[in-house]
C-alpha cells in the first residue's frame, strides 16, 4: 500500500476523525447517562425520605414512634423492594430499620449510622462488600411544635428529651445495582462497537475516496491514449461543474496546443520538402548542363561535379524528410499484403552482398523458416536495407554481420547484429531521433544526414512494430524489430 498516496491519506484522516468523534460521543454519553441515573436514584430516594418525614413523622407526637415504624413497614415494604429504610432519633436511637432484602445483597444492621447534621438533606454512596453500591438519601426532620399545652408540658420537664423536641433522621437507600449492570453493558457495547465502527468507516471511506478519484483515473487513462498519432482526439469531459471538469477541460486545451504544434511541425516538414524540390530541380538541371559543357576546363568540371554531389545529397535529405512526413501523416494501408519476412530479408541481404563483400564482411543469415507478416513490402524492405546498410557502414573490414528472422511468441522478430564499432550508451536513447548522429566524425565520410534510423522507426511504428537496439562500444550493435505475425 502506498502510504503517500492521496487516497491512503484521505482514508486515514477520515477514519481518525470519525473514530475520534465516535469515542468522544461514547464517553460523553456513558458518563452523562451514569450521572443522570445516579441523580435520578438519589432524587427518588430523597423524595421517598421526605414523603416519610412529611406524612408520618409530622404526626409522630400524636401517633408514637412505634406506630410510625409499623406504618413504614406496611406502606413501603422495603425488604421486598430491596430497599433500605432507617429512622433514627437525634440521640442515636434507631426507631426503625428495615430487614434484610430478599436478595440478601446487604445487611441493614451493618450500615453505618448517619450523622445527621443540622437541618440539611444529605446523600451518600455506600460500597458494599459484594461490589455493589447502595445509594442512601437522608432527611433531617424536626416535627413541628404541638399545642401550647404540650409546650407547657415540655417546659415542665426540661431535662427529659421529649418526642416533641426530638429531631429525626430518615434514611432511604436503594441499590444502584441494576443501573450499574446497564452501564456496564453499555460500556461493553461501546468498546466492542468502536473497532467495528472504525473498520466500517475505513472501508466506507476507501470506497468513497475511490469513487471520488475514479474520474481522475479515467482522465489519466484517456490522456495516456492520446499520442502524437491521434492528437486530434479529445478526452471526454465530465459535465460535473467541479474541479474534475476544469481538469479535463484544461487538459483538452493543453492537448489542443500540442496538437497544433504537432500539425505545424508535420506541415512544415511536408511544405519545406515540397518547396525545396523545385529549386533543387533547377540547380541540378543547370549544373548537369554545365558539367557537359565542353568550354569548361578541368578545374571548372571538378567544381561543378562537387556542386552536383552536394545537390544530390540535399535531394536525398529532402526525399528522406518527405518520406518521413508521409509516414507521419499516416499512409493508407491499401498497399498492405501478407508476405514472408524471412524471404524478404534473405533476398535483400543477397542484393547487398557485394557491399559487405567489398569490406570483407561476412553476412550470415538465419532466415530459413518462412515468417508471415502483413504490411507494405517496399517499406519493410527499406527497414532491412537501412539496418543492413548501417551495419555494413559501421563494421570495420573483416567483420561479421548476423541477420536472423524468427517467429517468437506470436511475433516476427528480425535481428541485425554486427561486431562493429558499437554505440556509446549515452547515445543509445537518441539513435532513432531525426538528424541525430553519434558523433560528427563517425558520419562525416558516409555523408548521411542521420535520417535512416528515424525512417526505420517511423515505418515500424506505422506497422505496429517495435524497434530496439542493444550495443556495446567496440563490440557491436544489435537492432531488433518486433512485428505482429500475420493471422489468417
Amino acid at each position: 500500500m502506498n502510504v503517500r498516496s492521496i487516497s491512503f491519506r484521505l482514508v486515514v484522516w477520515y477514519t481518525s476523525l470519525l473514530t475520534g468523534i465516535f469515542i468522544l460521543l461514547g464517553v460523553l454519553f456513558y458518563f452523562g447517562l451514569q450521572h443522570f441515573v445516579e441523580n435520578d436514584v438519589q432524587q427518588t430516594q430523597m423524595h421517598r425520605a421526605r414523603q416519610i418525614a412529611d406524612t408520618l413523622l409530622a404526626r409522630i407526637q400524636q401517633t408514637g414512634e412505634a406506630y410510625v415504624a409499623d406504618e413504614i413497614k406496611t406502606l413501603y415494604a422495603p425488604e421486598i423492594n430491596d430497599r433500605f429504610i432507617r429512622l433514627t432519633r437525634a440521640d442515636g436511637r434507631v426507631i426503625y430499620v428495615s430487614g434484610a432484602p430478599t436478595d440478601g445483597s446487604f445487611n441493614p444492621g451493618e450500615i453505618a449510622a448517619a450523622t445527621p447534621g443540622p437541618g440539611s438533606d444529605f446523600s451518600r454512596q455506600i460500597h458494599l462488600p459484594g461490589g455493589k453500591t447502595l445509594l442512601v438519601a437522608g432527611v433531617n426532620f424536626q416535627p413541628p411544635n404541638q399545642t401550647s399545652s404540650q409546650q407547657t408540658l415540655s417546659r415542665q420537664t426540661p431535662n427529659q428529651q421529649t418526642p416533641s423536641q426530638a429531631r429525626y433522621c430518615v434514611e432511604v437507600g436503594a441499590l444502584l445495582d441494576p443501573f450499574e449492570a446497564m452501564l456496564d453493558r453499555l460500556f461493553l457495547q461501546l468498546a466492542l462497537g468502536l473497532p467495528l465502527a472504525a473498520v466500517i468507516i475505513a472501508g466506507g471511506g476507501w470506497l468513497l475516496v475511490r469513487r471520488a478519484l475514479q474520474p481522475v483515473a479515467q482522465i489519466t487513462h484517456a490522456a495516456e491514449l492520446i499520442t502524437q498519432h491521434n492528437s486530434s482526439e479529445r478526452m471526454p469531459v465530465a459535465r460535473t461543474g467541479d474541479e474534475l471538469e476544469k481538469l479535463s477541460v484544461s487538459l483538452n486545451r493543453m492537448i489542443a496546443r500540442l496538437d497544433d504544434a504537432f500539425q505545424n511541425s508535420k506541415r512544415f516538414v511536408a511544405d519545406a520538402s515540397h518547396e525545396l524540390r523545385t529549386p533543387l530541380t533547377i540547380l541540378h538541371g543547370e549544373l548537369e548542363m554545365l558539367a557537359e559543357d565542353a568550354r569548361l576546363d578541368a578545374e571548372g568540371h571538378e567544381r561543378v561535379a562537387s556542386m552536383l554531389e552536394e545537390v544530390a545529397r540535399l535531394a536525398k535529405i529532402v526525399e528522406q524528410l518527405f518520406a518521413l512526413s508521409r509516414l507521419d501523416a499516416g499512409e493508407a494501408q491499401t498497399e498492405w499484403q501478407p508476405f514472408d519476412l524471412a524471404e524478404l530479408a534473405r533476398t535483400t541481404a543477397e542484393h547487398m552482398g557485394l557491399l559487405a563483400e567489398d569490406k570483407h564482411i561476412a553476412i550470415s543469415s538465419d532466415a530459413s523458416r518462412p515468417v508471415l507478416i502483413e504490411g507494405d513490402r517496399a517499406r519493410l524492405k527499406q527497414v532491412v536495407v537501412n539496418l543492413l546498410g548501417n551495419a555494413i557502414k559501421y563494421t570495420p573490414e573483416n567483420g561479421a554481420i548476423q541477420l536472423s528472422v524468427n517467429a517468437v511468441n506470436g511475433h516476427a522478430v528480425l535481428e541485425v547484429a554486427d561486431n562493429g564499432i558499437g554505440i556509446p550508451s549515452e547515445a543509445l536513447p537518441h539513435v532513432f531521433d531525426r538528424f541525430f548522429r553519434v558523433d560528427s566524425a563517425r558520419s562525416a565520410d558516409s555523408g548521411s544526414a542521420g535520417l535512416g534510423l528515424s525512417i526505420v522507426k517511423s515505418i515500424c511504428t506505422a506497422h505496429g512494430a517495435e524497434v530496439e537496439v542493444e550495443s556495446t562500444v567496440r563490440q557491436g550493435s544489435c537492432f531488433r524489430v518486433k512485428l505482429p505475425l500475420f493471422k489468417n
Partner: protein
Amino acid sequence: MRILLVEDEKKVADIIDRGLKAERYAVDVAHDGTAGWELVAAYEYDLIILDLMLPGLSGTEILQKIRAKNQQVPILILTARDAMADKVKNFEAGADDYLTKPFAFAELLLRVKALLRRGPVNRSSVLRVADLEIDRLSQNVRRAGKKIELTSKEYGLLEYLATNPGRVFSRTMIIEHVWDQSFQGLTNIVDVYVRHLREKVDDPYPVKLLRTVRGVGYSLNDETQP
C-alpha cells in the same frame, strides 16, 4: 517530333526546353494551364510534358480534358508530389509516365525517348557497345568474343547502361531500375557494383568502356570512337 511542355516554374521550363532543343526536338512551352490547354487544342503534339501544380487549369484537369477528347498523345507527368495515391489517380486519368522532382535531366530525356518510341519498336535482342555484346535473351555477355561471367545485379547494371550508350545515368536512376526504391538511401551500392563490373568488363582490355562522370553518374561507351 513536337513536344509541348506545360510548366509554371520558368527556370525548370527553361532547362527542359534547352535540353530538349539540344536533342533536336521542337518544343512549345506554356507557363500556365489555360495557355497549355489552348496549345493542345490548336496543335498536334507527339508528346506532352505536364506539371501537376499549375495556375489556371491544373495539370490533372488538362489531363482529363485531353483524354476526354480521346487523344492518343503520350503524356508525361512532372510533379513534386509523389504520394502513391496521386500516382494511381493520374495513371487512371490517362497519364503514361510519371517523374518526381527533383529529377535528373538525363532521366527525363530517357523517359521522353521511351514514350516517343512506343508502338512498333524493333528492339534488337543483342546490344552492342564497341566490342562488347550483351544478349538480352540468354543474358550472355561477351567482350572481343570472350564470355564474361556476371552476377544478376552486375548484368542488370550493364544492360541498363547499354540501353543508351554515351548517356550518363545518375545513381538514383540506376538504383531505381536495377534495384528498387527501397535502396534509395544506399547510393554507394552503385559505386561498389560499378567497380566490380569494371574488374570484369574493362580491366583485362585496353579500351575502357565504363565511364564515371563525377557528380552525375555513369555511362557506357567507347570514347575513342566519335
